[in-house]
């Protein structure tokens, strides 16, 4: 049976798993995993997932089934992914709106799509195809990008909305990505949020990012969440209502207490903005 995913969650990552699974803090209401790290894998990862599921509902966030590629999907992988998600009883699965590979080669990073009608058409078709194949609701996530778009494309928010509407899809809204893109390319992140159909948002991501000496912001998930991102989260939650919020921390992982302090800050914002009183 699918368990409720609500309130503030944390990404289950190898570097913090031991302490998290020992202490099982009540302030963490749910966990997110990347299925690629667990499919067809035993050992510590299998153990981590089994221990996590004893107490927490789990949602999944894919890294490799990127929605913007032009090659056909690997049907055997989608079948395997669907089986994995079914076993986990996830309420939804999410994938990035980006390009993860070309010519059967994987970037192992999230490269940006051009914000064109053609790319929106392809991404929406692929989203529908994946959703049908895996048999669970699928949300797309807005990605960060560092290279300027061509002059003839759509604005990023319009591109995201176009894909959402064409595919009648759900959205995993990454607040940090909107902030990073806004700062890197000079648009107002709140105006972006105003453009998003908030009824489609099923989950939110927040994270920290790295600021290079030249001012370029890189979405590293390796720094604490900055105040501006907290403020944008507050603005967003007031529009979405109480959708679950995940703190992403993948690199430069600090002691658990530091992360839990951020989780506590997120709870304050969540409760203030939504009025929701969710507990694990």
């Amino acid at each position: 049976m699918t368990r409720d995913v609500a309130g503030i969650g944390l990404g289950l990552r190898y570097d913090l798993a031991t302490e998290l699974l020992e202490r099982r803090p009540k302030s963490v209401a749910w966990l997110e995993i990347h299925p690629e790290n667990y499919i067809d894998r035993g050992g510590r990862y299998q153990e981590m997932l089994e221990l996590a599921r004893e107490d927490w509902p789990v949602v999944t966030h894919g890294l490799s089934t990127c929605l913007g590629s032009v090659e056909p999907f690997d049907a055997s992988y989608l079948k395997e992914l669907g089986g994995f998600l079914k076993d986990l009883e996830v309420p939804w699965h999410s994938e990035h709106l980006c390009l993860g590979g070309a010519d059967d080669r994987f970037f192992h990073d999230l490269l940006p799509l051009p914000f064109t009608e053609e790319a929106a058409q392809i991404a929406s078709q692929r989203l529908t195809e994946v959703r049908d194949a895996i048999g669970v609701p699928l949300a797309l996530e807005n990605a960060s990008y560092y290279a300027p778009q061509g002059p003839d494309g759509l604005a990023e928010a319009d591109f995201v909305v176009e894909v959402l509407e064409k595919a009648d899809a759900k959205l995993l809204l990454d607040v940090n990505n909107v902030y990073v893109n806004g700062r890197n390319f000079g648009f107002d992140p709140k105006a972006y949020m105003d453009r998003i159909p908030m009824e489609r948002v099923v989950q939110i991501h927040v994270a920290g990012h790295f600021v290079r000496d030249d001012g370029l912001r890189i979405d590293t998930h390796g720094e604490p969440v900055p105040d501006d991102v907290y403020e944008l989260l507050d603005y967003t939650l007031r529009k979405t209502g109480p959708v679950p919020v995940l703190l992403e921390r993948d690199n430069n992982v600090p002691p658990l207490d530091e992360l839990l302090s951020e989780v506590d800050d997120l709870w304050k914002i969540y409760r203030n903005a939504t009025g929701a009183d969710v507990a694990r």
Partner: protein
Amino acid sequence: MLADHAKAMQRVCFGAEPSKADLELLGSRERWLVYRDLVRTRLSNVIGVALARTKSAIGDEAFSRAIDEWLATGSPRTRYLRYVPSELAEFAIPIWQRTEAPWVADLAGYEIAAWEVRHAPRNPTPSAEFAFDSKPVLAAGVKVLRLAYPVQNEPTPNTGYAPDPTILCLYRDKNHRTIPRKLNPLAADLLEAWRAADQTVAESVQQVAAAHHAQITPVFIEKLSTLIADSIQRGILLGGHSPPS
């Protein structure tokens, strides 16, 4: 066209040298070189973790050169980051056999085997206890490695390794670490026969003993019992599959 765009991204990230034409198509030389760096750094990092001792033995420059050449030949092909080091090793070990000290290929082979054992799939579930008349069930990822140099001994000596042929069984212990265990040639062949799991234990013992011109004497049986008990205790041998009745 999105397809052209994607191919240009691929060439910029993986090619030996990004072309001016691709960077112009994508629109920003400086920012696409950021992507090239991000992609290559992530791949290099996971390979460097898996092959840490090999990297230290041959030096950063030779190690990076191997990764650059591998990327330029059309990799990675796997969606799983944990399999990336194996793809690199398959490409680079034959090169290192020609260009590096003779024990380096053994070291890289040992490190990558240990990495694969650690990240192997879930263990199969036996349907029965271990028995001589059943097909054996081994833990996932168990490997038998035949080495010309004892590269499992750490730290790597400053002078490198002297030849000393060694056979190892690599397995994942209950704490999820890869453990090397020395084997004699007969035990190694038995373990490989058990891993193939296409014969009962009794059949494989008879076949391997014959191949080694070994008589099945009480001493042989005592040593076999010790090997089986040790393999069960270490979690190498999980049980058996009963033959269909």
